[in-house]
């Protein structure tokens, strides 16, 4: 394909330059030029520190009237067996003090095994699986646990640069006990060869922080002649209810 897009080499060099001298950052940079779509979509001023109050201190509440337990199984939603590698993703949602986030909403969405989303905007010429929508929801348990049965998503191409491919991932949307803990992220699979090349993943400049987005294969979660198990725990930011001044970082 003819293209005026930059090469992977150019983008990888930009990533390396931005990583040099970066250390200990725990969240992605908002200003990360190798991810071209971020150029005009990141604030240029520092975030303003504010003491949360009122509605910011109370997360929305979800319950069993909001979702159906079958929404946690993405392999049974569309009237037939989806194609692909059946997996379970299981873990816990904790707050910054290590407390489980109980009874809270977790939402996921993902591509199918061929790397195709059911979305009008996804024109990647890979097959749609009519038995897979790639959307799931559940409520966490008393110990903060969640679990989704799904199909391992495939990597897919995008137009950030020439021959750009996203590592396989599942989008996660999370709530805590305060609205200040709201977050959306992506879970990745261990050993993906595309990690080093991906400007979205690499917008997190610290390897230890990047590792926190990678699930681990857990054979104890795998089921005989049925599916493979991955474990991924999620930590939200700290709450303010038990805020100790010494923690103000």
């Amino acid at each position: 394909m003819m293209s005026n897009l930059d090469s992977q080499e150019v983008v990888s060099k930009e990533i390396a330059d931005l990583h040099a001298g970066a250390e200990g950052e725990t969240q992605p940079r908002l200003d990360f030029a190798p991810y071209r779509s971020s150029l005009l979509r990141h604030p240029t001023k520092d975030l303003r520190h504010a003491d949360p109050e009122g509605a910011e201190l109370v997360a929305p509440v979800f319950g069993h009237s909001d979702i159906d337990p079958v929404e946690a199984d993405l392999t049974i939603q569309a009237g037939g067996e989806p194609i692909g590698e059946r997996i379970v993703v299981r873990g816990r949602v904790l707050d910054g003090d290590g407390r489980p986030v109980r009874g809270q909403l977790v939402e996921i969405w993902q591509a199918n095994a061929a790397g195709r989303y059911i979305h009008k905007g996804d024109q990647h010429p890979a097959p749609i699986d009519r038995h897979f929508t790639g959307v799931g929801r559940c409520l966490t348990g008393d110990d903060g646990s969640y679990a989704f049965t799904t199909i391992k998503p495939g990597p897919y191409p995008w137009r950030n640069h020439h021959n750009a491919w996203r590592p396989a991932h599942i989008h996660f949307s999370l709530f805590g006990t305060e609205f200040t803990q709201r977050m959306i992220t992506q879970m990745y699979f261990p050993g993906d060869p595309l990690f080093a090349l991906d400007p979205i993943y690499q917008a997190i400049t610290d390897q230890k922080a990047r590792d926190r987005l990678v699930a681990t294969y857990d054979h104890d979660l795998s089921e005989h002649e049925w599916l493979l198990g991955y474990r991924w725990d999620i930590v939200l930011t700290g709450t303010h209810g038990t805020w100790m001044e010494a923690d103000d970082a």
Partner: protein
Amino acid sequence: MPDLVATPGQTIGPFFHYALPFDRDRELVPPGRPDAVRLHGTVYDGAGKPIPDALLEIRQADATGQVPAVEGSLRRDGTVFTGWGRCAVDSVGRYSFTTVVPGPSSPGGAAFYAVTVFARGLLNRLFTRAYIPGDADALEADPLLAGLDPEARDGLVAVREEDGSLRFDVHLQGGRETVFLAFPRHA
């Protein structure tokens, strides 16, 4: 207690439309209710162009300043006010919630909608506030607004339109860049 490091955020990406929106997601109250107000606006990028793939959420108190903690947002029946809503912008960057005007969380305080912004190209969510216009004393005394220069401050106060609706535009970047917030204990 252990102080754990938070999991990093990532962009919402371009493909959330078939997953996150739900029926009546933006109707915190039914549109026909006498006290219903429309909170609406446009999300712009640094070139001043509307962003067609952003998603906003609001969290708010009711008219008395109480923040509801009740289920029922995902299957709204029109009778329960949950104080939370979600709205994906349209192809020209516009969002619109139907809700009520929140009361202040403390007497004499400045009332606001807590707003969270997600977008393709935005690597982590952003928090801001859409303050309710009108109560000049309360706005004047608000600790966040008091620390801002006038232009930045004005950007956080919704505008009362002639039709009674509240307009709050979000500028991710540029001369009119919205003030975005970090909270203590956030890395």
